[in-house]
């Protein structure tokens, strides 16, 4: 930060709050982005945190921008360290331009910072627990947000607390607000970011919420799961809304039970799902194979984190694609969606239920900590594009669950709906579902199951090309890397480099071949160490990427890092 002169931050600001677990950063993240958005700012927030309940160093980035933003930046314009460990924790990202706002009572740093007596102010109001709301106030002041609007929001936010706590929070907010407005006035520094009427009318949700809303839109009415970071967000979301949407929510004793319960539920007519992460999926592998054999629909939300084993429980990675693709013994079809935007997290989760039901196969929604935990504003989803398609038939008395049909799909009946008897069998079976050792029938049944892959391929979600159609270099990404790749390319600003965003990694949409063939150079971006999607492309399309941009330290790509690495690779 330059001494003396007034700093003016415009267009796009990156604010980072950092402190120990338990210091209330989460509350800030729940309040500030929403009030900023209501004021018409485009906002984005993401957090990185340690696997612990108290202590350590966690940080949240809040980007406020005049244009849409959806990715993590290394750059910190404003840093609010809530404890002494914060600055060392973030040292690589602090630049001379970073404005640090801290409390000299707590902070001892060689770096210059604007001293704001957060704890002093908070204590006067009633205790240090109000520090975080003082910070909310200060930041609100810096953006000159409507005091009434924010006060109102805070009042509602704390509405379940005791009256004096609500009052103190409002006081804390107002105290902070004064400090904030004072910055520009006193010439310390000013923020100048354009607002946008649209943003004010948009929704602000997280990746977990987008998936949860998608599940509800897909008709999900049964979820059995076992808690596992970073998948628990979706489980919790559905539990919170279970009364409203008639959803049966069951925390299973383990992931094996969760998966098998889901299959029982589908068998009896539910639209069910499980949520898990890599270690939990490992335990569901046998159940996935069962879904393949009994031709049961299944929806598996898999939120990845770095492995192997327990790995880094609260970090991000795209390291479980291959496991998802090959999970289960024996051979049977499946579908894997990989949303990279909140819109797609919503639509693809919704679609997963229809596709699972229609083709009677397991469908994966593959996400990760990065996507699950970020939030930004987006337009309301188009509800007319969203339909709960049901494929259950009322059975007659001659019903055969595994009737051999032309296309491999046997109409699916459920017990108690019609006169038919519904068999489901994990052994190789005849059309009635009874165990068979007729080896000719075995061939027919294998063919029937595998045939369905062609049908689902025909319904694959096409990739999305972002950028110029006449590119030289094509950057390819799947899932949560989307926001960072997109913004990195915007920053590079080259007409020659475009980006292909893959929303379904299996089976692959045929257009992908064309896009890759049209490129002189192809670059794959993946948040893992071995380029699992690159291998999938090699395997199914016979093409190899010219270069790979990989990252596997547990953090998502930042926009700057990607811009640098992509430019370098593109130039080679």
């Amino acid at each position: 930060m330059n001494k003396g002169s007034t700093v003016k931050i415009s267009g796009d600001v990156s604010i980072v709050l950092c402190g120990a677990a338990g210091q209330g950063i989460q509350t800030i993240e729940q309040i500030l982005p929403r009030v900023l958005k209501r004021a018409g700012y485009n906002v984005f927030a993401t957090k990185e945190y340690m696997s612990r309940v108290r202590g350590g160093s966690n940080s949240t980035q809040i980007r406020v921008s005049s244009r849409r933003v959806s990715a993590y930046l290394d750059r910190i314009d404003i840093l609010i360290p809530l404890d002494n460990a914060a600055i060392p924790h973030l040292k690589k990202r602090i630049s001379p331009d970073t404005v640090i706002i801290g409390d000299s009572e707590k902070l001892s740093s060689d770096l210059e910072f604007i001293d704001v007596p957060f704890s002093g102010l908070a204590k006067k109001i009633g205790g240090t627990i109000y520090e975080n709301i003082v910070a909310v106030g200060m930041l609100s002041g810096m953006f000159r947000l409507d005091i009434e609007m924010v006060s109102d929001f805070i009042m509602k936010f704390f509405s379940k607390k005791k009256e004096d706590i609500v009052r103190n929070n409002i006081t804390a907010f107002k105290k902070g607000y004064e400090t904030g407005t004072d910055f520009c006035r006193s010439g310390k520094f000013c923020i100048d970011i354009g607002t946008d009427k649209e943003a004010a009318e948009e929704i602000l949700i997280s990746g977990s919420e987008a998936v949860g809303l998608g599940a509800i839109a897909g008709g999900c009415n049964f979820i059995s799961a076992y808690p596992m970071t970073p998948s628990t967000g979706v489980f919790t979301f559905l539990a919170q809304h279970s009364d409203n949407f008639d959803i049966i929510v069951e925390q299973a004793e383990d992931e094996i039970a969760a998966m098998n319960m889901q299959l029982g539920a589908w068998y009896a007519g539910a639209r069910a799902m499980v949520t898990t992460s890599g270690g939990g999926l490992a335990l569901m592998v046998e159940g996935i194979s069962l879904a393949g054999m009994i031709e049961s629909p299944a929806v598996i939300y898999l939120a990845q984190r770095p492995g192997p084993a327990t790995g880094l429980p609260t970090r991000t990675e795209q390291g479980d694609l291959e496991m998802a693709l090959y999970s289960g013994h024996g051979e049977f079809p499946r579908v894997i969606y990989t949303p990279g935007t909140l819109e797609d997290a919503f639509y693809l989760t919704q679609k997963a239920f229809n596709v699972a039901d229609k083709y009677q196969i397991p469908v994966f929604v593959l996400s990760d900590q990065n996507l699950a935990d970020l939030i930004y504003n987006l337009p309301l989803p188009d509800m007319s594009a969203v339909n709960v398609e049901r494929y259950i038939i009322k059975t007659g008395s001659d019903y055969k669950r595994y009737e051999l049909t032309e296309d491999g799909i046997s109409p699916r009946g459920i017990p108690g709906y019609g006169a038919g008897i519904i068999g489901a069998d994990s052994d190789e079976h005849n059309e009635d579902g009874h165990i068979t050792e007729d080896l000719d029938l075995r061939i027919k049944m294998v063919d029937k199951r595998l045939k369905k892959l062609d049908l689902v391929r025909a319904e694959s979600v096409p990739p999305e090309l972002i950028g110029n159609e006449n590119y030289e270099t094509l950057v390819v990404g799947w899932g949560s890397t989307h926001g960072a790749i997109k913004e990195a390319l915007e920053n590079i600003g080259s007409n020659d480099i475009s980006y292909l965003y893959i929303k379904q990694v299996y089976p692959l949409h045929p257009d992908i071949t064309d896009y890759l063939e049209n490129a002189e150079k192809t670059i794959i971006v993946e948040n893992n160490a071995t380029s699992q999607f690159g291998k999938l492309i090699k395997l199914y399309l016979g093409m190899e990427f010219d270069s790979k941009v990989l990252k596997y330290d547990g953090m998502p790509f930042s926009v700057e890092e990607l811009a640098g690495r992509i430019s370098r690779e593109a130039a080679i």
Partner: protein
Amino acid sequence: MNKEIFDLPDIDMAWCPGCGNFGIVSVLKEALAELEIKPEELVIVSGIGQAAKAPHYLRTNFFNGLHGRALPPATGIKAANPELSVIAESGDGDMYGEGGNHFIHTIRRNPDITNIVHNNMVYGLTKGQASPTSRKGFRTPIQVHGVFPEPFNPVAVAISLDASFVARTFIGDRDLTREILKKAIRHKGYALVDIFQPCVSFNKVNTYAWFKDNTYRLEDSHDPSDRQEAFRRATETTKLPLGIFYINSKNSFEENIPIYGKDKTPLFMRGPDREKLTHLIRSRI
């Protein structure tokens, strides 16, 4: 109702002649017929093993899933449609070995299902290894010096978990088995029926004669509401009592599911509420 309604035409039963499994299927059909349960409204869920083939031998809906995993899908089925009668049926290895975790947690969850365990004290299908209920000293190709641990006592464990209904019987006593099955199926909540079933091929120790000599019926005076007494009887070892050890009536899993609080409609007949969803989405503005 006539028990023939449960007969399947032309079935080739894969069990050995003389196996106790035949009796169990036959008595089960009688019990179901006497209870007037329609084949279309019943689902039998099983795992893998000789016992787990049972649902293939009667005419009703069946879900023959994975080894050790009968209880979770049974719970899912009952939850998705509480109007169905649900039986989870498997062998001792399946239910108490591979599926042990589901066994204990399903008892806690208390879905209204009947859990029938064909207890032959051996792994039949895989040709004679020890099961959790194998007796001490039982020699097998794997347990070459005989089994060391105490046999798993499903009745005692179920009582320790405060299960809703706990019974044990022996297929050699068909009348007792039929009566217990009827009571178990009628019972609201989880009901365990552990059935001693001689495996004539791989268990040459615990034969029909052995079970006959080593079991007896609990007296009529036994009070199944007395948990301590039930536990005491369950831990008897010189001779093994048969009968209903313990009954503890309480809310079933489905009764505790909030969505069935007011409205009993099964899931497949419910639609999602678009308006509410729109409302929820708008709340995120």
